[in-house]
């Protein structure tokens, strides 16, 4: 990261405490203090904090992202607890979003969190997306994903698309016109997709860490994000590949 970028854009300086908290990552090549200042000045919208979004949010909190907008409706269910790591047994029956905020603030009390107790929809997508620098799509329903991607495309905001099924997972970055549109991959809600599907928390957690890293790269401006490429892994065989989308 070019140190002059942070100065030019008047990004907030790091405090001594911030430097101490992040010192292990400040030495990462091409990231440095300027990259950290960019993270600290950034807002990430995460659509649902379930098996994927919980771990994405936790990693971004650890990395020192300044502000998260979390959108997730409903109360914690027993069946959430095999993968939704921001939910706890003592919170069953209480709002998921409150559990997420509580757990994230235990790790990073300085991070601003806007908690939205609704799922993404065509009614709220434009407003929520407009306040973010980057979005992580961790939602299960294609209706939510299409609405959010339409809003993100209209505002030119990159979306990290992470997904899992059984022992498989996939990851890509959507940022048209540099990349394909999400609707080029999914023109409409696919037939046969079910809200509940087989998965281990270790699978969603693995791809969630990678999604968080993609968001960090996009925000801090280093590395090579997965644009026009789809990373795919099958943890049953430990096969991984990167597929060309365009």
């Amino acid at each position: 990261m070019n140190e002059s970028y942070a100065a030019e854009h008047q990004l907030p300086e790091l405090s001594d405490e911030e430097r101490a908290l992040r010192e292990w990552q400040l030495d990462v090549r091409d990231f440095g203090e300027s990259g950290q200042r960019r993270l600290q000045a950034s807002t990430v919208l995460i659509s649902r904090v379930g098996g994927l979004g919980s771990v994405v949010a936790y990693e971004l909190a650890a990395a020192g992202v300044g502000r998260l907008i979390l959108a997730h409706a409903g109360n914690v269910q027993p069946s959430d607890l095999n993968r939704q790591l921001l939910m706890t047994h003592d919170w069953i029956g209480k709002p998921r979003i409150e559990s997420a905020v509580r757990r994230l603030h235990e790790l990073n009390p300085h991070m601003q969190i806007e908690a939205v107790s609704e799922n993404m929809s065509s009614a709220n997508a434009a407003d929520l997306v407009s306040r973010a620098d980057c979005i992580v799509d961790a939602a299960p329903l294609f209706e939510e994903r299409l609405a959010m991607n339409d809003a993100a495309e209209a505002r030119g905001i990159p979306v990290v698309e992470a997904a899992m099924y059984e022992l498989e997972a996939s990851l890509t970055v959507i940022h048209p016109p540099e990349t394909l549109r999400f609707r080029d991959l999914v023109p409409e809600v696919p037939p046969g997709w079910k809200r509940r599907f087989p998965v281990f928390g270790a699978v969603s957690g693995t791809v969630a860490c990678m999604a968080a890293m993609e968001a960090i790269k996009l925000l801090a401006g280093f590395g090579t994000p997965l644009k026009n490429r789809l990373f795919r892994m099958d943890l049953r065989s430990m096969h991984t590949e990167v597929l060309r989308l365009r």
Partner: protein
Amino acid sequence: MTQCIITVELTGQLQHHLQHDQLTLDCSQAPTLAGALAALAVAAPTCVEILGKAITTPEQLTALPPGLLIMRQQTMLPRDPQTAVTDGDHLTLLPMISGG
């Protein structure tokens, strides 16, 4: 008629639903993606749940099912059912998956 035998690797919901990692299909009558999916539907009729409609002939497939990506040599093929396939092709069928 030129022989066209292809292998399709199944992933995600298709693999889970059909309980197979891959299938060998004869597309000699219609060496296209439509022909391949019609052959898949004949070989494994229950995949109608994922494909969205019952297909028995290539002509019945006027568009690829939404959210189904098809890869050849690690590159996504155009979403045109008339895209040609050739004998010995290895295609990967990737139904889009989600978070949750």
